[in-house]
């Protein structure tokens, strides 16, 4: 346990030093604040509560941005250190490889959680300061959105490690990471949509659609945040959520599985790797 914390501490230290933490936090805060004030302009004061609008726009942003940031941090974690030669020295110390991996994971997720909490938190605080009324229900939904954003990021960090542990060169890892991002964030949904349109409900049953949505962490994240309570009416996801009828707990379980399974696979791949 102590070894894991030592590695995590070093990752955070490095993240602070090479300004990863700073840039990520500033980027997320800037985007969140922009969306907050631009996004609330059209709704004015009618009906929709300001924080609910922010949740919708921020989760749409998260789906694109957090996987990208997570993959950027993580794709280099193992293959980069191996290539630079620092991994060889580290592994000659009394520490197991899974501890190295888990320590990095704790460190990287902490960086991401810090940036998300601060960046998105800034948006909520700004709303409160400008005098928008925020009720408890919206606040809970907002907290859930931030927490699940971190979980989504953690999933992509784990996927990045799996890529990083499987390849021999950093360039390959970067290429695969971009491909993973493109497929899971953009292509998967487009393909699914195209299929649904062409199919006209002939072969795709509700159960199959559920499975397909759970198979992509970004879809699980979207359903989790864009279908609950007041938000679904705003997001236009109401339609699909009625067909898909997935419970929040199964969506959370899918997101957690998307974190744990790649992490375990990455640890196994790393353990077998010859240095």
């Amino acid at each position, binding site marked *: 346990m102590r*070894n894991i914390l*030592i590695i995590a501490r*070093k990752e955070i*230290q*490095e993240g602070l*030093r*090479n300004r990863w933490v700073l840039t990520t936090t500033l980027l997320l805060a800037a985007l969140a604040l922009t969306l907050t004030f631009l996004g609330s302009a059209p709704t004015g004061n009618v009906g929709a509560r300001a924080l609910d609008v922010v949740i919708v726009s921020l989760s749409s942003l998260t789906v694109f941005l957090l996987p990208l940031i997570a993959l950027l941090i993580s794709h280099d974690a193992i293959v980069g250190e191996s290539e*630079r*030669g*620092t991994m*060889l*020295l*580290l*592994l*000659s*110390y*009394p*520490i*197991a490889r899974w501890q190295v991996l888990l320590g990095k994971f704790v460190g990287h997720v902490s960086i991401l959680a810090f940036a998300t909490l601060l960046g998105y938190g800034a948006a909520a605080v700004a709303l409160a300061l400008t005098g928008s009324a925020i009720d408890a229900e919206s606040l809970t939904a907002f907290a859930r959105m931030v927490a699940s954003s971190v979980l989504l990021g953690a999933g992509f960090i784990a996927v990045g490690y799996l890529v990083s542990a499987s390849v021999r060169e950093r360039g390959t890892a970067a290429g695969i990471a971009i491909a993973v991002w493109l497929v899971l964030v953009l292509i998967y949904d487009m393909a699914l949509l195209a299929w649904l349109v062409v199919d006209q409900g002939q072969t795709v049953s509700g159960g199959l659609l559920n499975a397909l949505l759970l198979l992509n962490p970004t879809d699980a994240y979207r359903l989790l945040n864009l279908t609950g309570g007041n938000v679904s009416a705003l997001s236009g996801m109401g339609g699909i959520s009625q067909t898909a009828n997935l419970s929040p707990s199964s969506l959370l379980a899918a997101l957690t599985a998307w974190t744990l399974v790649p992490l375990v696979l990455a640890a196994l791949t790393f353990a077998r790797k*010859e*240095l």
Partner: protein
Amino acid sequence: MTKTIDLQSVTKRFGKIEAVREVSFTLHGGEVVALVGHNGAGKTTLMKLMLGLIKASLGSIEMLGDDPAAGDFAARRNVGYLPENVSFNAALSGREIMSFYARLKREDVGAIAPLLERVGLADAADRRIGTYSKGMRQRLGLAQALLGEPLVLLLDEPTTGLDPALRQSFYDIVQELSDRGATVLLSSHALTELEDRAGRVIIMNRGVKVADGTVTELRRIALLPTRIRITSALGDVERARTWFGSPATCRRVNGQMIEIDAAPDQKIALLRRASEEGAPIADIDILPPTLDDLYAHFLRSQDAA
């Protein structure tokens, strides 16, 4: 002497290539051992095997009583390793990196400042490693290997990038550790430098151990001639040549100097003759075969076999 490292017919294959073949040796506390060989002779692979970073395909390895690849890391706390081309994260300072490694070995952070002082990095300790020269990184690598007073030190090409003064203080540190009972295994290309420092030499060639022993033992096995260089009295070079009998073993170097390659059993007789009354000799130098010569010899004899 306590046994620290024990290799029994160790073979390591990478795919079809045999990086190390049937290598056995035992190292003890207090020994300074030079591991000598070309690039690709298997030196680095041997060190990685001893550390458990890779697993042997065949044979057994014991490091301080444990199998290093078994996944038990207790022994590693007493091992220091300096990899070839050591590198560190450039964003951190020397002191930060040292405290990171000290924590991993459960060492007191108080040990860091004296170590940095000892390798001459006290002034640069708080600078980013990105600003270090190659020699400074090498010294930092040495400092981390010395953390926790190790019982075994594995140093892969430790003196590359060090200037002569630092080399000297590096070998002082090695000597001190071995006096304290540590085993120091160092690989190097700079054979002349190792000659006086290493009590024992292991020569590797293409994955096979070709020689193992003290420099003196290796000289005896190799039967390499000792070169005796004689400076004759002025104008007496011809007489000096005939003075030693058969001129076949004599080479005239220049107008005043001849060289004789003396087999080990002829050496004393030749020296006696040279010190006889009336010998036409002004000066005499005796050059025993260097580690370079021995190395070349063992490689040749293995290639011939």
